[in-house]
């Protein structure tokens, strides 16, 4: 059986890289009125193949990634491993869509939303198809050999399971307030790609690339205090 497998890893403590990224985007690159939240993960996606069940394959991959600090360090990381229908680990990914607190809250952990953005998102979402949009953006180096090296590393330790088609990098969940999904996507592209000193931050296109691996519109309640993923 071949199973599509994904691994998300995040710091258990406040992620200062995310804090810095958020401050830089908001205050130096003028996205303060649109960037409503962001979260940072290390991410791996692969095919895992074995004779056993999906659940057993997930358990075997889980055994290895828990032991190998190239993937997780139990002292500082939370993770979610998803293999087909099986899910392991203590990271609640959905919680990272939560809309709560002010601009400073949760910048490194869950997604905090600026009050101004909350109000506009609620109004826009109710009237014109606008609102809060979340994009999971995978930033990868343009070096397939690095990804292959992660697969080799896993395969050297796995028993009865072989992984292939490895894809990995840093995953940024960006939550933006915009009048439409298209406008939100345009902002996300501008936040991601460093094209000039005044534009882009999260990747340098001369050695990195990105893809959107998931996106959704976030429904907010009347007070903006609650959120759930739409679509």
């Amino acid at each position, binding site marked *: 059986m071949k199973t599509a497998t994904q691994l998300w890893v995040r710091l258990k403590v406040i992620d200062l890289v995310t804090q810095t990224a958020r401050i830089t985007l908001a205050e130096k690159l003028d996205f303060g009125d649109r960037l409503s939240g962001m979260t940072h993960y290390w991410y791996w996606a692969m095919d895992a193949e074995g004779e056993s069940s999906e659940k057993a394959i997930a358990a075997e991959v889980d055994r290895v990634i828990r032991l190998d600090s190239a993937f997780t360090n139990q002292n500082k990381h939370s993770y979610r491993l998803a293999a087909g229908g099986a899910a392991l680990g203590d990271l609640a990914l959905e919680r990272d869509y939560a809309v709560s607190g002010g601009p400073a809250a949760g910048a490194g952990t869950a997604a905090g939303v600026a009050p101004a953005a909350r109000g506009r998102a609620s109004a826009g979402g109710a009237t014109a198809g606008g609102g809060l949009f979340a994009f999971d953006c995978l930033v990868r180096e343009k070096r397939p050999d690095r990804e292959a090296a992660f697969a080799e590393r896993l395969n050297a330790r796995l028993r009865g399971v072989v992984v292939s088609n490895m894809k990995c990098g840093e995953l940024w969940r960006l939550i933006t307030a915009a009048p439409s999904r298209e406008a939100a996507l345009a902002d996300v592209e501008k936040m991601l790609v*460093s094209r000039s*000193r005044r534009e882009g931050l999260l990747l340098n296109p001369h050695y990195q690339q990105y893809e959107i691996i998931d996106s959704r519109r976030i429904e907010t309640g009347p007070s903006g205090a609650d959120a759930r993923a739409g679509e």
Partner: protein
Amino acid sequence: MNGSFKGHVAIIQFPGVNCEYESAAAVRSIGLGAGIFRWNEAPALLDGCSGIILPGGFSYQDRIRAGVVAAKDRIMDKVSELARVGTPVLGICNGAQVLVEAGLIPGIHWEKVDLALAPNVMADREGYYCNWVFVRREKSACLWTGAYVEGEAIPIPIAHAEGRFTTEDAGVLDAMRENGQIALRYCDAAGAALDSFPVNPNGSMDNIAGISNREGNVLAMMPHPERSTWLRQVPEDLTGQWGRRRRAATGEAGRMEDEGPGRAFFSSLRGGKGGEAR
């Protein structure tokens, strides 16, 4: 300096850099004044400065990507403004990463990011690499290499994990070659630019170790000249004339303060355009 850097070289201290004092000492070693400028001081204090150095280290802890957060800092507005009117600007290691992320290097399209300093690509290893290497002074209009002889192989230390000059735009590489912007290339002790590890220690395209802007007043270089400014900093087992000098000086404390191979980057500053030939 009463706050103003007029007539002095300003060493920009972003949070997390760690070579600012050595860089200032290296500038003073050639008789120029130098001071530390903290990134959040008034930019106008830099007016009239005789040069700017962005030193090595880990600005903003290398968060997101080496040099990128500092590149977006507002003080870089002033650095960009001064660079554009000809003020000498030198970025060393992390400072080079800042200049590249700020688009001041190569500066063909001012402030456009035309290059990256990507993670090292090395044979059978990855990550941080620290060693002495040789760089060759290339034919260029670079102010900061003016005191070296064209073709000279200069021994100098490197210490970085992200030092691989690369671009997706072949036109940029062609333009840099045509404009004479490639100021330094990694080479062996004899000056041959072999494109293999360890001569090219990070997989940099075209063996590039340092790039200037077209005008020659801005240089981004990955090696550390401030760590090779005095003879005492040269390792005894170094190949070539500098190693011989260092070995000959062993036991003579006074000679340890003699010039090292990297000092001429700073003395180039005294000669203005084209540098002060040694």
